[in-house]
Structures are given as C-alpha cells and as structure tokens.
C-alpha cells in the first residue's frame, strides 16, 4: 500500500526504501568491475614491488606465518615463488580481468543502443568474480591448498566460482548481442565476443585439466599454451576492442576504415589462436607444429600494425588532443605498446634469438609490455573516459590524469626494457660460458631498475584510484546519457 509522507503523524516512520541485494540499474555492472579493477591494480603492483624486492633480497623479505584453526595449523608462505604467483594472478585476473569485463559491460550497451539483457546477472558476476579472486589470492600463499601451474594456482573450488562468474558474464553479453540484430555489430563487439568466449573456454578447460590426470609433460605443455593464449586472445583482444571504441569517441572522428578493422580482426583471430602453439616445446610435439606457433607469433605483427594504422588514421585532424590530458594520450601510448609488444614478441620467436634469451628475464620484460603496457594503458584510457559517465560527475582532473599517464608509461617502459636488457646480458654471458655467480651480479642491477619501474606503475595505480575517489566526492554532478533512458544534452 502506498504511503503519502505528508500525512504521516510525528511518531510514524517513513516507509523504508527497499534496495536490491544485487543492483540491477544501468551501468551497475560496469561500475562494479571498473572500481574493483582499480583496487586490484594498486594491490597487484604493490605485490609486484614486493616480488622484485624478494628476488633482490630473498633472505630479508621471506616470511612464514602460522595461524591456528579448527582443522589444524594453517601456514602462509611469503617467498619469491608465492609472491610472484600473487603478482601475476592479481594482475591478470584482478586488474586486467575486472577491467576487461568492465570495458565489455560499459561499451557493449552503448554500441548496441540497448541496456544489458540482464544487468542484475552482470552485477552478480562482478561480485562472484571478486569474491572468488579474494579467496584464490589468499589460497596462493597457503602451500597446503594452492594448486600448480602458472596462472592456475587457485584451488579447484575457487576455479569453479570464477568459471561461474564468467558464465554469468557471458550470459549477459551474448543475450544483449543476440537481441540487437538490426545491423552488423561494430568491430569492438567482435573483439569482445571472441575474447570473452576464449577466456571462459580456456579457464574452464584449464580448471578441468587436473581432473584428467594428465602426465607431467602434458600438464606443463597445456599450462604453457594457456598462459600465452590468455595474453593473445583475452588481454590483447579486449584492449584492442576498447581502443577501437575510445579513439573515435574521444576524437569525434569516424573510424578510418571498417574493412581494415575487419581484416585485422580476422588475422588476429587466426594468428592469436595459433601463436600459443609455440609454447608446446617438447619431444612429444612435432617440431613443425611448434614452428607453426612461432611463425604465427611473427605474423601477429601484421594485425597489430593494421590496428595501429587504423587508429592513428582515425585521429588525423585531431592530433592536438595528444597534447591535452584525457583519453587520447592514454590510448596513443597503449597503441604504441601494442606495436612494440608485437615487434618484440616476433623477434623473440626467431630460433636464434630464443637460443640467446630462453630462460632469462627477457620473457618477463616482454610480458610486462603486453600486460602493463597495452592492457593497462588501454584500460586507464577507458577509466578516464568512463568514470565521469558512470559516476555522473563533471570532472577535469588534468593534473592527476597527466601524473597517472606518465607514471604508468615511464614505469612500464623502465621495468620492461630493464628486464629485456638484463635478459640479453644474461643470455650473452651464459653463451660465453660465464659461471652463474658471475651472471647474477650484473642481472641484479637490471632487476633493481625494473623494481623502480614497477614502483612507478604502483604510483600510477594509486593516483588513478585517488582520482576516482576525488571525482566521486568533490566533483559537481553532471548528466550523461544512459542507455535505454531518455537522453540529456550530453555525450555518451
């Protein structure tokens, strides 16, 4: 029964407003994913800093905690191994996973012109995903329950929770897409579809793999394939899809070429799927098959170059935006890292180069370029564009945006280049027959520089989070268009 507040007597209480446990308003899911992403970004880079410190001073920073519980004593191990796992997992699943899903749920409704098919389901996926991540990240430090395999250290029940979250996200995304059949979807949606399906499929299969009782060699090969595929199909896919949305939106220009975008998408789809085969290095795998993976990695330069060319041509006429703080400088730096990563990975796929840098710090440096460079800068560009719209704030955080951009760019470049240079020095000294003790000396200094780089990225994460906090608490309210609702006179 409706109550008129004007007729309430003094001792009456106004009717309570019922808030749903799972928010289902427009953009709730995107907001939840993106806010969580920034928190994970800060956490991941903080753990990364600790990891670098542990590699430099393993004896000083190692820690072991024992806590009594109902089922006995629980041990938490904080050593270079567990902290390293914590860094990669929180970076890939916490920061890039949340940001990627947030990008999908922010951009898809705006491109299709309709609200998500089930916003509540998408919001629930954000909650389930982050609860699962918290449990998984805690379990990594518990040798009794942690599983094995790079990026697959979470225990089986946690993997199940994360797969459930991904299935919920898929449900919302695909139902939204299938309800919009009026015209071919924009290229970002094509990237998102493949990336989300690949992420879910790969994570699901990787979760099931231990149940199959694979031999050690097969399990190690599958794990190598998984790690590479997550980078090429999920992180790169969502980052490129996001950039294809942001650059035309922020410049106000149309996309340079639809045909070029679709050609790059087809090439990326084929080559990014084949590239992880290069990780299958074992006598049980024919050499020709592994070579197909390496050649695919080499050829990935082509779609990367086509994407870069298309986006830079799109900016034509609005180059001055690069000099002003905002989305475009972030996007241009992300595009630069995309090109650099593709080139470096291609160089690393050459047999003679692999012989030099195999098993050194080079691989970690290139991976930082891909994850912290392309991925992080693309999602920071999205954060710059999306948060004022999600929080409905009139925000001009120019100084903070500049500080975030330069810290993230300088930190990633410094850490990545230092590790790559350290890898080359390591490999060269190894080929000259230098003993390990002699190699460790110079490599130490490169790791030290990499640590400084990671600390700059951590600073960028802190500033980005502070910027969102200040935007929410101190900026004036502003109206932005909401998908599926009457539009005010503002941008989308």
């Amino acid at each position, binding site marked *: 029964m409706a109550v008129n507040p004007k007729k309430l007597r003094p001792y009456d209480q106004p009717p309570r407003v019922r808030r749903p446990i799972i928010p289902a308003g427009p953009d709730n899911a995107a907001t939840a994913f993106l806010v969580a992403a920034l928190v994970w970004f800060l956490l991941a880079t903080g753990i990364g800093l600790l990891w670098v410190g542990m590699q430099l001073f393993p004896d000083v920073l*190692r820690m072991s905690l024992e806590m009594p519980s109902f089922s006995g004593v629980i041990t938490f191990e904080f*050593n270079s*191994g567990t902290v390293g796992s914590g860094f990669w997992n929180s970076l890939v699943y916490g920061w890039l996973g949340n940001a990627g899903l947030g990008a999908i749920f922010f951009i898809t409704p705006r491109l299709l012109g309709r609200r998500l098919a089930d916003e509540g389901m998408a919001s629930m996926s954000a909650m389930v995903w982050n609860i699962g991540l918290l449990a998984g990240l805690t379990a990594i430090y518990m040798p009794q329950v942690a599983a094995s395999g790079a990026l697959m250290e979470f225990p089986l029940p946690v993997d199940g929770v994360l797969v459930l979250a991904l299935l919920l996200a898929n449900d919302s995304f695909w139902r939204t897409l299938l309800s919009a059949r009026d015209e071919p979807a924009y290229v970002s949606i094509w990237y998102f579809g493949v990336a989300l399906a690949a992420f879910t499929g790969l994570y699901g299969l990787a979760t099931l793999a231990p149940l199959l009782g694979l031999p050690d060699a097969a399990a190690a090969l599958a794990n190598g394939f998984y790690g590479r595929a997550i980078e090429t199909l999920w992180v790169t896919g969502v980052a490129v899809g996001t950039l294809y949305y942001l650059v035309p939106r922020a410049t106000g220009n149309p996309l340079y070429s639809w045909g070029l975008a679709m050609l790059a998408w087809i090439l990326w789809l084929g080559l990014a799927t084949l590239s992880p085969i290069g990780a299958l*290095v074992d006598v049980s795998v024919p050499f020709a098959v592994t070579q197909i993976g390496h050649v695919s990695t080499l050829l990935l330069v082509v779609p990367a170059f086509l994407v870069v060319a298309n986006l830079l041509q799109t900016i034509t006429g609005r180059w001055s935006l690069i000099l002003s703080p905002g989305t475009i400088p972030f996007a241009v730096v992300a595009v630069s890292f995309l090109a650099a990563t593709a080139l470096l990975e291609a160089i690393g796929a050459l047999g003679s180069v692999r012989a030099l840098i195999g098993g050194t710090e080079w691989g970690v440096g290139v991976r930082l370029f891909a994850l912290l460079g392309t991925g992080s800068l693309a999602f920071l560009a999205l954060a710059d564009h999306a948060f004022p719209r999600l929080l409905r704030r009139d925000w001009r955080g120019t100084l903070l945006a500049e500080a975030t951009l330069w810290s993230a760019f300088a930190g990633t470049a410094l850490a990545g280049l230092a590790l790559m240079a350290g890898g080359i020095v390591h490999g060269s000294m190894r080929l000259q027959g230098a003993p390990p003790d002699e190699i460790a000396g110079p490599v130490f200094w490169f790791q030290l520089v990499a640590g400084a780089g990671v600390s700059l990225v951590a600073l960028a994460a802190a500033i980005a989070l502070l910027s969102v906090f200040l935007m929410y608490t101190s900026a004036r309210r502003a109206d932005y268009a909401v998908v599926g609702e009457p539009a005010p006179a503002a941008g*989308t």
Partner: protein
Amino acid sequence: MTVHTPIESRTRGIPRWALGLTGIAFVAGAIFLATNLGGANPPIIGTPVPSGGVPLDAVGIIRAAGCQACHGPDLAGQGDFPNLHGVKDGPVSENLQQLGADYPEDWANLWIAGTDPAVADLGRGGMPPFGTTLSPEEIAAVVEHLKSLP
C-alpha cells in the same frame, strides 16, 4: 529517445596497401616456415640444458626461490629443515624414504615440484610446491646443482 550513437567509418573497403602488406607478410611467413621445419624439440622434463646448450643458472634460481631462507645460506640445513648436501645419496628426511625407493632417479624433482600425485600424500612441512613457480627445466637444473654439492 534512447541513446544509440553508432560509430561510423570513413570507408568500408579494405585499402589496397593493407591487402598487399598482408599478402607479402604471409608469403614471407610461409617461406620462413617451409625452410625451418627441420629440427626437434627438446624434452620439457628432466632436461637441465635449454636450447642454448648451456646449463640454467641454478644458483640464481635457488637464490630467487628463497631456498636458503629455510635450508640455510650454504644449504647445509638449519632448524627442522634438512641438509641438502646429501641429495646425491638419496632422501635425508624420514618421510621421503619411500619416495626415494620408488623413484630413485626423479624423487628430488618430484618432491621439489610438489605437483605430482606421487607426493600428494606426503606432508611438506611448509615447503612450497615449486612446480607452480619454476619450470621443470629449472627444477632439474636445481637438482643437478644439489647433486653436485660435496
């Protein structure tokens, strides 16, 4: 009115230069593949020698993995943590004797990795399963180094 502002494109077709570039790159890739099919992959497990033909930096791996924090700076053991200088003669710890008997060649690799079902029921006493963070080649390099200790 609902918000639906699709992103337009300046042109629909594929620029000729892009088709040409793609064609040239794929022809070059095919030639590269055809001329690089000879060879064999190295084994992924039990090989301390990477493709470069030089042993991995076992000391660096041991230092980075934090082995010395428990087993002592010279790996000679401290407190409850065993002396690793005896690895070449088989397991020192009581709970690893059966593992050593069942897998006389690989017991140390299996134990350090901690991911094989063969060691699933053995109490690890706080030792992390390094199979989650080190590659089989790195573990094999560490075992080779430990076996070389006097």
